[in-house]
Structures are given as C-alpha cells and as structure tokens.
C-alpha cells in the first residue's frame, strides 16, 4: 500500500468503502432490516452514481458543463432494453444482459461522439444549452417512436401504432410514449456495485493517463495546450465520448431494473440532468468518490425524510441551498477557516484523537 502513489491509494480506499457498504446493505436486505422503499432504491442509486461519474468526467476534467447527460442515459437505456426485449426468447439470460450492456454503452458513446463534434465548437453556457437541447430532442424523439417486429422484419414509424402495419404474428417493441414494457429485470444490486467499481477504475486510470493529463491541460488553459501542440478537438472528443458511455451504462442498469421504460421529463429529461449535476457539484467537481457519496446521500435523503411527508422536498431544497452556501460562499469559507471548521482541520483533529488513543 505504501509503495503505491496517492491517487491509487485513494482509489483502493474508495473501492473498499463501496465493498463494505455493499456488504452492509446486502446483509440488511437479507435480514429484512431494509424498508422496501430503500431496497427499491439500491439499483437506481448505482445507476445515478454511474451517470454522476460520467458527468463528473465531463464537468470536472473536461471543464465543460453538460446539461444533457440524461439524454445519453436515455439512449443507453432504450437501446439496451430494446435489444433485451427483442431477443428475450432467443438468447439465454446472462449473455443477453452482457450484450445489452455492450450495446447500450456503444450507442450512448456513439451519440456522445456525434453530438460532441458540433457541440465542442461552442463553449461555456452555450455548450450547456446545446447539450440540454440535445437531451430534450432525444427524449422527444423516443416519445414518438414506434417499433415493431414481425415475420417481414423491423417496422419503424413516428406516427402511431397503426401505421406500423404489423402482421398478426408481430410484436410491438417500442410503443411511443408508453415506451418499452416487459424488459427482463436483470439488474441486481451486485451488478450495479460491480459496474460502479469498474467505472471508478476506468475513470481513475483515464484521468491519470497521458490522454487524461492532456484533457486536464486543455481544461486549465486551452490556448497554452494548443501552443504546445495538443490536438484539442481529439482529446475533447475522447473525454466527452467516454463520459457519455459511462452515462449510458447507468442507463442500461436503470432500464433493466424497471418493467416499463418511458421517457419523461423526470427520468430522462433536463430534470434528471440537473439532479445528476447537483450530485456532481455537491460531491466535489473532479472528485469521483465525492460524486458517489453525494448520490447515495441525496437519493436516500428524501426517503429518510418520508416521515415528514409533504415537507420532505421542501426540506431537501433548503438543505441543498444551505449546503451550497456552506461549501462555496467565500465569506462562510473564510469564517470556517478562521474558526478551524474546514473539513481538513476537522479530519486532522479526528486523526489526532485516534493517535492519542
């Protein structure tokens, strides 16, 4: 452990914490100590964590604000669910899920790549609004998409079910605004945790690789990076595509956890993109473990506050504002530094008391 460099140590610690958390949760679930609401949240938390990791790569390392990551999640979810449903009876469960995972990831990455080509010409808030627009377009198009399959092959329509012209033996795969129903529910908490760990390893390695360092250099000073001969567009494209792919994995997990998959504003629209962005910023921009912690806490928080019924979302929003002020307001930060209330000093104190013991 001592021979490893600092970032690798951090990665190992994060993974260990996740494993411990997983064991605690799994034990609690099997002994029936977890409410059904909580256990229903376990897989979505993993899915959101994956999207948050993807978005953090984009916001923290590429330095570009994306408000459309729910769109990539949506692409991953729908392509994989489509595949799973279309081949539900022809391919056995395990290879089908693996293939669905690969397909969902691939298509999310493809969309990320295609969208990145025009989008990365812009910068700042303009880039944010265009990613938001792309996310909304993806959601809207899926809502009017009808796909069916019969003995003549695939039928696609953007009008209604009737215009598909399916033979009597055909099945409807994507039913417009009703989305895809009857996706096999194969996503388990274990798969989710494994995917999160995998995504963490990939991103940690990526940001410390040669390419990752180039991406960071571009974020810190694009002109300087350009003058030393870094191909800006190439590195930006790589980072954005990987970021979209990870969000797509989250989508695959999300799709295989629910029976009927629909694209609404709340699950794949800008509301979701914004929610994920909240996780990323609260967890710390550029800090992947932080994103995980924020995702877990903020997803569980409304459930824990359920006893307060109607007031819970109100309290949630107040907590969100208070946390942002506490963590970012310059005056409050100064006050905390003066009175020894920064997270560093508090952690230091805890360490000291441990050493004394």
């Amino acid at each position, binding site marked *: 452990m001592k021979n490893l460099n600092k970032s690798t140590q951090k990665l190992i610690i994060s993974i260990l914490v996740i494993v411990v958390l997983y064991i605690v949760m799994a034990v609690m679930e099997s002994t029936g100590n977890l409410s059904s609401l909580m256990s229903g949240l376990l897989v979505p938390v993993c899915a959101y964590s994956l999207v948050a990791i993807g978005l953090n790569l984009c916001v923290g390392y590429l330095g570009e604000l994306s408000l459309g990551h729910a769109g990539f999640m949506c692409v991953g979810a729908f392509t994989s669910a489509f595949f799973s449903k279309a081949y539900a009876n022809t391919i056995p469960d395990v290879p089908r899920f693996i293939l669905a995972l690969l397909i969902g990831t691939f298509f999310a990455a493809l969309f990320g790549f295609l969208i990145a080509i025009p989008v990365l010409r812009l910068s700042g808030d303009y880039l944010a609004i265009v990613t938001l627009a792309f996310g909304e377009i993806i959601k809207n198009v899926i809502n009017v998409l009808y796909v069916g399959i019969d003995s003549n092959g695939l039928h696609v329509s*953007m009008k209604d079910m009737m215009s598909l012209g399916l033979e009597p033996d055909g099945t409807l795969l994507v039913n417009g605004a009703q989305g895809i129903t009857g996706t096999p529910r194969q996503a388990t908490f274990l798969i989710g945790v494994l995917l999160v760990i995998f995504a963490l390893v990939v991103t940690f390695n990526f940001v410390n690789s040669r390419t990752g360092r180039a991406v960071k250099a571009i974020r810190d000073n694009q002109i300087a990076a350009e003058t030393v001969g870094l191909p800006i567009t190439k590195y930006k494209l790589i980072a954005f595509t990987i970021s979209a792919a990870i969000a797509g994995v989250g989508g695959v997990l999300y799709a295989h956890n629910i029976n009927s998959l629909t694209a609404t504003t709340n699950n794949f629209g800008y509301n979701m993109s*914004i929610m994920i962005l909240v996780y990323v910023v609260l967890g710390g921009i550029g800090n992947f473990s932080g994103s995980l912690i924020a995702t877990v806490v903020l997803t569980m928080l409304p459930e824990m506050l359920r006893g307060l019924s109607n*007031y819970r979302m109100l309290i949630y929003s107040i907590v969100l504002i208070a946390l942002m*002020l506490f963590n970012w307001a310059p*005056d409050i930060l100064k006050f905390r530094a003066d009175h020894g209330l920064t997270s560093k000093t508090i952690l230091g104190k805890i360490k000291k008391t441990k050493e004394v013991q």
Partner: protein
Amino acid sequence: MGFLTYLINGLSLGSVYAIIALGYTMVYGIAKMLNFAHGDVIMIGAYLVFMCMSNSGLPAVVSIVIAIACCTVLGIIIEKIAYKPLRKATNLAVLITAIGVSYFLQNMALLIFGSNPVSFTSVINWEGLSLAGGQLKITGNAIVTIITCLVIMFGLMWFVKNTKPGQAMRAVSEDKDAATLMGINVNATISLTFAIGSGLAAIAGALLCSSYPNLNPYTGSMPGIKAFTAAVFGGIGSIPGALIGGLLLGIIEILAKAYISSQLADAIVFAVLIIVLLVKPTGILGKQIKEKV
C-alpha cells in the same frame, strides 16, 4: 388564413417567451449567472394573480400590480439570501443554488396551493378582433400580449440607455471592478436587475396563463427552459436579442405544432436552436468575445 392565425398565435406565445427571456438575459448580462429559478417565479406570479382575482375578487389590473410587487420583493429576497453570498464563487455553485431555489419555490407552491391544477381565468376580458369577414380571428389575449411585450421591451431599452440606474447596469455588466471604482453601487444594481426581472416574470405568468389556463406548481419550468433557450438564441445578455429570440422561438413552436407534429414541436425548436448556435456560436445578436493570451 390558417397560416396567419398560426403566425399570430406564434407571435403571442413568442412575446411571453420574450418577456421571460428578458429576465434571464438581464440577470445573465450583469451577474453572469443562469437563474434557473426564474421559471418558478413566473409560476408564483401566476398563482398570485389567480389568488387575487378568483379568491378575493379583485380586478385584473390590481391583481397584476399586486403580483408584480410581490414577485419583485421575492426576487430581491432570493438574490440576497441565495445568490449574493456566492457572488465570488464559481459559476457552477451559483447554478446549483439556483436549482435549489427552483426546487424550493416549486415545493412551497405545492404545499400552499396543492398539486391539482387550477383553471386560470384570463386577465383580459376582450373577445378580440375578427378580420376578413370572420375568417381571421385574433384573440384579445394575443393582441394584449404582443403589445405588452413591445411596450416592455422598448421601455426597458430606453431605461437601460437613458437613466442613471440603467447606465449603472450597463457599466456593471461591462466590468464590475471598474464600475465599483466609478462609484456605482454594484450590489444595489444587481438587486435592481433581479427586481426588474422578477417583476416582469409576474407579468409573463399572468399572460402565459391567460392563453394556457392550466396552472400547477410545475407550470413555470418548461416555459422557463424555453425562454432561456430563447435568450441564448438571440444572444444572451442582449435585450433586443431576447425579443428576437423569443418571437422566433414562439413562431417556430406554433408552426411546427401545426404543420409537422405536435409531439415533435419541442424537438424541432431545440434543433433550430442548435443549428443557429453552430452557425453563430454566440446567438443572433450576441457579441463575439475574443480571447486574449
């Protein structure tokens, strides 16, 4: 005639977008922040007008004035509590706080007014005009909305150009530090901007719900996002840009709904936005900012 009717409906919707977009664009120009809570101020404004008119039986004009006053105060309070402490923090932190404020307003409205949509009574009691022998009908709502929008727009342009506070606004949006050195009270100017933006949001809320009477706590969010798009479309930070962006967005939306597909209208609006931004990366009237080394 069908086309003309759609065009007028589009202009009317576009005028509402333009009024909302003004709030976004002014705040962005001065505080360099995306005020995501702006859409929810519209909703609050609409509810206030509804409460005054339907529950207390006040006349429409009085209700709107009350709503404007309340929203102005609300805007100032939001700015003081949530945004002012973060003035020197990163843009992203302010953005997330704005999202928090947006959640707060939505849930507050949910608690006070309930989740059931209420049916908004139009603030305009006028049948409208009937032209070309009854073939072309223009509703009173549309006429009043378009005129209000133009009045606000030119009033605001005059205000920013010719008055002391307006000039202070322009100075702060150019360069905050230099404006401070010139003796401009930057905090007061930013508060004033929020006040104007939120007051306009109340008007926009009343006009929006007069044409689309379904009012619930989430009414403001989609028009908010669209108006934000309109502001970017026209070049964020520019007042005439907000007008052009808003009107174009409204017309495109209504025409797309009428001639292509009502479900794909939003997608088409956003696609046009993307194409415009790719051709002109800073919007139609946006200024090109050159980066210096």
